[in-house]
């Protein structure tokens, strides 16, 4: 069986295939004409079909990773990454490629309906090729989505670690969400830089917003405290809830070298004591007046 013959057929029937493919796409309920115009869709589809025809010219229907498929890969990359960003669903992206399968098979049936054996091999070949291509598309689609997620993670990390100056020489850093190593790195960088900028002696790390503390999170906390000490400042950890205290003890994590407090308020109190500061209620005129009256 000559695969080049099949490639010839594709080339010859390109127009018919494209028309039929477009028809399938336009008829599909899942057509997102809100996200992509019909003209753009046709241009994209033609580009992809051209790529496939060029790639199969030498009869290669099997190996989509060979250099002949570079152009096809590029076009598919482009399509799935832009579609991932535009908000197409995975089904819509995969269906786009799979609907081409139907269009090609229709042409083959028309041409070779009196040669069932040839037709069978051709359909099998087409199936395999288009399946491979749709897997490729899906992979790149996922990669596109992952990039979006990664960018968002970076943004979240960036905005979710504010360092607040609560007093002259005292910084507070509320941590919300899970502390992984990536996040710890950002927390440390922000905190240490702010210690340098403000010349602060004490940093309070408030973990009320951290859902769970396991040994890894504890290790990250200990690292942050050690780095703060190396800079010449002291670190207090506050916001330790009852269940967190329980897990810490049950896991056998040693936090004895770290100053810990239940609430941010008591941590601040400790910080005041460490800086020999005294905060007390002002003796207002009212009180003195009432004393006078009495």
């Amino acid at each position: 069986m000559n695969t080049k013959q099949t490639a010839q057929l594709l080339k010859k029937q390109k127009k018919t295939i494209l028309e039929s493919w477009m028809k399938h796409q336009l008829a599909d309920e899942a057509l997102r004409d809100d996200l992509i115009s019909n003209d753009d869709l046709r241009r994209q589809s033609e580009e992809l079909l051209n790529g496939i025809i060029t790639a199969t010219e030498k009869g290669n229907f099997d190996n989509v990773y060979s250099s002949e498929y570079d152009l096809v890969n590029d076009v598919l990359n482009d399509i799935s990454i832009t579609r991932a960003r535009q908000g197409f669903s995975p089904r819509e992206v995969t269906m786009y490629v799979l609907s081409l399968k139907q269009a090609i098979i229709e042409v083959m049936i028309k041409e070779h309906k009196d040669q069932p054996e040839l037709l069978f091999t051709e359909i099998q070949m087409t199936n395999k090729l288009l399946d491979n291509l749709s897997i490729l598309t899906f992979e790149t689609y996922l990669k596109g989505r992952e990039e979006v997620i990664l960018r968002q993670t970076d943004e979240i990390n960036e905005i979710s670690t504010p360092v607040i100056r609560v007093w002259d020489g005292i910084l507070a850093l509320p941590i919300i969400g899970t502390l992984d190593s990536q996040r710890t790195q950002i927390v440390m960088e922000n905190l240490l830089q702010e210690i340098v900028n403000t010349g602060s002696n004490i940093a309070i790390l408030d973990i009320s917003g951290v859902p769970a503390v396991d040994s890894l999170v504890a290790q990250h906390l200990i690292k942050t405290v050690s780095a703060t000490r190396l800079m010449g400042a002291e670190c207090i950890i506050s916001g330790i809830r009852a269940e967190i205290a329980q897990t810490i003890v049950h896991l056998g994590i040693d936090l004895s070298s770290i100053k810990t407090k239940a609430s941010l308020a008591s941590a601040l109190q400790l910080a005041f004591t460490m800086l020999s500061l005294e905060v007390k209620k002002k003796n207002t005129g009212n009180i003195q007046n009432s004393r006078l009256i009495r």
Partner: protein
Amino acid sequence: MDRIPILKMGPFLLVTIQVDLYDRLALSLENDLINMVSKTGARGVLIDISAVNIVDSFMGRILGNIASMSRIMDAETVVVGMQPAVAITLVELGLTLQGVHTALNVEKGMDLLYDKSDLLTDEQNNQEDTEEPDDYND
């Protein structure tokens, strides 16, 4: 051969490291500093590493050695001005400079030395006004 200059400031010795240390230079600093402590009877050593970009385990060991040796001769050691990137790297490396006091800058380091060595600063001599200490690791 290059040498790192050691300055005497009152009861303390002050060293500012301005270059990336290669091993022999670091070793000679350790040697010179300990000899100076012994000769001058200094009560404290202040090492400013604000210009140092890289502290590896060798350099960390030198700092630790200086602190331990000085302590035997009744002098405290304060390392000041460590860059954030260096601090993060040292922690990851597993080096926490046990026995070495740290402070943010030379000024705070001096205060800390006065505090640790039970000496009164000039200011305190004049007006019993207690300065805030910087280091609470005991």
